[in-house]
């Protein structure tokens, strides 16, 4: 049975907090006068893939933006590996190990593929490690290797998504935040991106994934949270949620039980 989180007092997922790599507690974020996140608790353990589901405007992207420091929380804590990060500037947060692959890819269109990857590693000092990771990403996405001197603006949407993913991986993150990696891509490309994400998961990459496509997200993830109007309306293991589709639908739209 998926656990209903709504109205539940106190911190949730406490049993995990000892091992959690990323721990978000009682987070509240406002956009102007609007409360976008209203007291969310969430944790991601090392090596785990956690999906963040929910309808448009539920606050999923705001969660990721706040974790990476682009938005400031009104209250609450975000802790990465024991260190509070919710007051730090984005550049520091990247250095501490959070890479954010944003919605809409946001590659630097006037820069080449190689330059985009280079900037992905801008926060790193170990040149040898950077060169190795770059070759690894070219091996993962051979098309990027072919187009390394081409400007990123000339790539197709799928190629840009690969580049955005590669750029985020170049930061050698302890946790990867992915915002809608399938958005606007043809089904075949979506499959390819998710195959790559599955390989990354198998190699031990920790991910927090925002995704509209529930089936794809639950196939990849270990656990999932459903957000509705800035609150966790449902959470549980991916297997549990897949088995109880009605509960997920209700959590999306507002429970009518």
């Amino acid at each position, binding site marked *: 049975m998926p656990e209903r989180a709504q109205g539940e007092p106190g911190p949730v997922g406490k049993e995990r907090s000892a091992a959690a790599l990323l721990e978000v507690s009682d987070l509240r974020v406002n956009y102007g006068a609007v409360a976008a996140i209203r007291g969310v608790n969430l944790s991601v353990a090392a090596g785990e893939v956690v999906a963040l589901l929910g309808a448009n405007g539920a606050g999923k992207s705001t969660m990721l933006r706040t974790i990476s420091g*682009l938005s400031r929380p009104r209250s609450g804590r975000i802790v990465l590996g024991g260190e509070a990060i919710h007051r730090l500037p984005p550049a520091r947060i990247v250095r501490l190990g959070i890479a954010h692959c944003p919605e*809409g890819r946001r*590659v630097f*269109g006037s820069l080449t593929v190689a330059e985009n990857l*280079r900037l992905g590693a*801008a*926060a790193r000092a170990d040149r040898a490690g950077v060169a190795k990771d770059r070759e690894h990403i070219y091996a993962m996405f051979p098309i990027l290797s072919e187009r390394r001197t081409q400007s990123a603006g000339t790539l*197709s949407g799928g190629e840009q998504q690969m580049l955005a993913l590669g750029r985020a991986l170049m930061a050698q993150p302890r946790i990867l935040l992915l915002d809608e990696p399938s958005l606007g891509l043809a089904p075949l490309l979506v499959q390819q991106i998710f195959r790559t994400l599955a390989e990354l998961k198998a190699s031990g990459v920790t991910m927090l994934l925002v995704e509209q496509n529930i089936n794809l997200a639950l196939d990849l993830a270990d656990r999932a949270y459903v957000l509705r109007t800035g609150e966790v309306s449902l959470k549980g293991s991916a297997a549990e949620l897949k088995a109880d589709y009605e509960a997920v639908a209700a959590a999306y739209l507002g429970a009518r039980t």
Partner: protein
Amino acid sequence: MSFELYITQQIINAVSLGSLYALVAIGLSMIFGILRMTNFAHGDMMMVGGFSTLVLQNLGLGFGWAVVGGIGVGALAGVIVERTAYRPVRGAPEVTLLLTSLAVTYILENLGILIFTSSAQNFPLPDWMDSAFQLYNGQITFTQINLLTVALTGVALTALGWFVTRTDIGLGMRAAAEDMGAAHLVGLDVNRLIVVAFAIASGFAGLAGVLWAAQSGVVEPYMGFTPLLKAFVAAIIGGFGSIAGALLGGYLLGALEVFIVAFFPSEISPYRDAIVFCLLIAFLLFRPNGLLKRTQEVKL
């Protein structure tokens, strides 16, 4: 005088004038690209560069070192203005940024008047620079200053080209100009990028100020005003925010101004600036993105 020689002479003049416009326009465009702010105080860095070079010469420094010092003081002034005036209002509405940069302009120009008075001061040149070359029995003339302008601009642009394509900070500056949010997300230290951008932009303006003073023979507190307006037009023509666009716009504008005077009846010449600003209006109406700036297309 043969027509070919006449054209050659006009091209020399156009390149020389265009170099100055390009030097100023690049900095203006660079800062707009990153901060989305029109830095009206940018022209005053020309004044800072010109006066600093004058003072350093009066202190006994050789001309070359005085110029290097003038560029350095210009760059430093830009960085100080960024730290003290622009950083506190970063992220504020555009009107606030605009008024802040206008305020900085007034402060700098009045500081100039306070220290050097409002009258123009003679800008001394070493003897070797005060000569001109003549070819084809004087049908083509170019001065040492023309030559120096083109050479120094070439060096500055080559160095800038290397910087923005080969270094992390240079690439980061271009990335931040394109998408500030994504620049934050890849971990770029945006404050540092902005400081470097101001140093380069203001250093270029300082160099332009020295060359402008060398051509006109004087420095004065308001010397940056007209070049700033012209650089603004050049940057818009090329695509405001684009470095390559500002370069192209600067040389196009230089050529246009020289050719208006050279090839049209002399009654037209007084309307040169009016024609230039009509061109600005035409670009704003029909091609507001300029010649080079790419419009972001959304790819699916």
